[in-house]
């Protein structure tokens, strides 16, 4: 029984570890400036915790086999433990865990403790059951006023956001169903929700933030690859949660300027 148990525990451990090492299912190709640091810390954490995982499971397997009844180790040690060992492994795990924490904290701080750069592109992202809307402030750099009583979700676009046409700042606002942003320039996202909590998740950008009704949450990321990247809602928001998705389209600065100008022209 001890031998079978050891083999089963070892097999489970090695097969599980194999799929992590082979990266059969893994993070998508990174597409933002922050992704490299995050991915590196993933790798560090996997090496450290993976070592602990494999060592602990293999040790468990060996112990149940070696100290089975009727095995070679026949005499039981009468011992209530060892205070020195307790201190040693307490200190070791404390150093390991606090060390990992400190390593990752600097990445977190560099992402979330500072405001976006001055030249960042501003995009207001609004979630509602079950769609994302993206608003650009236009040449004046100001978002027009929105009013809840003006919202008309079925009309889509500006009406869905409740944009007040009487506000001068709203005249040049552009509302889009996909998020178009220039490459290699920081994007400041202003996250809002009309109804329940949604979460704006772009796996390729290693970016996620809840959109909370009543709050306007400012976050930023810098795309470094062009292409289309999927957005998925990552907070349960109702029966259509699974289909609340969208696209971040990263293009060159030129293409972005042309796209925005064309949308401005459509409005006139």
């Amino acid at each position: 029984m001890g031998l079978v148990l050891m083999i089963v525990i070892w097999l489970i451990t090695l097969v599980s570890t194999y799929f992590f090492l082979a990266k059969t299912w893994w993070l998508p190709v990174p597409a933002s400036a922050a992704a490299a640091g995050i991915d590196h810390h993933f790798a560090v954490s996997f090496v450290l915790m993976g070592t602990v995982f494999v060592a602990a499971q293999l040790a468990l397997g060996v112990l149940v086999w070696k100290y089975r009844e009727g095995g070679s180790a026949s005499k039981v040690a009468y011992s209530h433990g060892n205070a020195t060992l307790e201190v040693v492994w307490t200190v070791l795990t404390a150093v390991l865990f606090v060390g990992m924490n400190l390593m990752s904290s600097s990445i977190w701080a560099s992402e979330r403790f500072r405001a976006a750069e001055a030249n960042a592109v501003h995009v207001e992202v609004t979630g509602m059951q079950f769609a994302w809307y993206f608003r650009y402030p236009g040449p004046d750099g100001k978002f027009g006023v929105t009013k809840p009583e003006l919202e008309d979700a079925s009309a889509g676009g500006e009406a869905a956001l409740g944009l007040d046409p009487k506000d001068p700042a709203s005249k040049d606002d552009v509302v889009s169903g996909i998020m178009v942003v220039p490459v290699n320039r920081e994007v400041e996202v202003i996250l809002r929700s009309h109804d329940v909590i949604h979460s704006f998740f772009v796996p390729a950008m290693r970016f996620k933030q809840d959109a909370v009704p009543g709050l306007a949450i400012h976050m930023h990321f810098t795309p470094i690859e062009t292409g289309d990247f999927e957005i998925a809602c990552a907070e349960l928001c109702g029966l259509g949660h699974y289909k609340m998705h969208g696209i971040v389209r990263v293009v060159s600065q030129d293409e972005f300027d042309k796209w925005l100008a064309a949308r401005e022209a459509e409005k006139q």
Partner: protein
Amino acid sequence: MATHEFAAHASHAHEAPQGFIRKYIFSLDHKIIGLQYYFLALTAVFVGMFLSLLMRIHLIWPTAALPFLGEIKPETYLSLLTMHGTIMVFFVLTTAPQGGFGNYFLPIQIGAPDMAFPVLNMLSFWTTFLGFIVLLAAFFVTGGAPLHGWTGYAPLSALQSAGPGEGLGADLWITSIAIFCIGALMGALNFITTTLDMRAKGMTMMRMPLTVWAWFITAILGLLAFGVLLSAGILLLMDRNLGTSFFVPLVTVNGQLTGHKGGSPLLWQHLFWFFGHPEVYIAILPAMGLCSQLLSVFSRKPIFGYKAMVYAMLAIGFLGFMVWGHHMFMSGMSPYTAFAFSIMTMGIGVPSAIKTFNWLGTIWRGRIRFTSPMLFAIGFVSLFVTGGISGPFLAQPVLDIYLHETYFVIAHFHLIMGVASIFGIFAATYYWFPKMFGRMMNEPLAKLHFWITFVGAYAIFMPMHYYGMGAGLRRYSQSTEVAYIHNLLPLQKFITYAAFVTLAGQLIFLVNLFWSMAKGQKAVDNPWEATTLEWTTATPPPHDNFGGQTPVVHNGPYEYNVPGAPRDYVMQSDPAVTAAH
């Protein structure tokens, strides 16, 4: 804490009841109440498993028409996951280890004739039972069960118009949880008083079995946590029905103003997780205490580092109240607070690691008897390590950016809070069944059950880590809409097949349980040659537990293979041994 003379609490004793109803239904006997809790949890776990099976079927065959139920719609899927989570967390993981085994064995293990407050004990069970009935009723009302998940995040859970099931179903859901909280509070009070006040002569705190320590600490956590959830639930009911706005700001649903303004959705999350994180330890601590004990009993060796185990459980309980914010790194809470919550959470890994080392230390240089409870205890250690090791990933905000709400989280908490705790429940069942029913369970069937469940649990939950690494999101009723998630479908198929086999394996347990009650081999008083007080009394124990005797304790709880002792175990009530060091 001084120990009390047994006679000092003779007033707690009550006469053995006559008649079926007083004896088995509205019983004051902690043993009967323990069994009532156990069978409530057993019913609940099979309901919960059935719901998970429906979810697994829907995930890979979304349009399949099921007998009686028809096609599962996206909103039905969300109702299933809400009810699965709620049933499993409250009515299984909180009910069986603490209400069930704790009720039955805590008084016996400390040498008491009953709980401190027998009437309160009966009330706490029937309150819990009522909570379960109210919860199940949510399935049968217009709109069905709520779809807001077991975490019930507002405003989704606060607005009737937010989706199907958010009408009467959601009210019943909250009411059920509030009722459950009241029952749990009464139970916690009883456990704490009993442990502090009812111990037999010689049963000092540091001679208590680790199971008793675990139930005691769990009760303290329950007393502090369930009150908060109860309050939060009442506030949510008021938001829903009385027009208050604790959790709801100015929102529009489908372009319609709801009339609320000024509330904070984050307030609900803070209150919920202030309960929700300690709840994880409420579920797992009794299993930790029990498996520590079983590793010692079946390795025929004292616990490695008894005091360290006690301090580690106290540390886990204490730190457990300071880490709730790690569920909220992406919630819009200030990013600065993430620092504090993250370091506290990593800190809780330290006592968890101490326990793991001590479990390995306990079997090291022992002589292991591979009984079915021991197999489940060893399985518990393996699953605890696997489920625990993913914790430090989620505890680091920078990695949580990617992993939050993915299946990586599902894998993590199912392994450590779900499966590891369930292994504790199985181990407890196989270990204490002889004492509770006077018969042994069938050992070959029990071992078969272990192998299927152990390998099956890994086959179900290990692939969920990979699904999460691929950013596969939880609470998605279908994977067809998002292209990258659709690519992960083969993993979901594998998981569903594994779930079929593993859940079928649980029928072996059910058959063994009921067959052994009627036909199992008669058990002797101490079949495992264990040392704690429940093995000194008759099988099953008499109404007052010790048949008019008052046990006196002379030894620690885990004296195995003491040099010079006549046999390889010294019971707690045996004359004092001197080899202790």
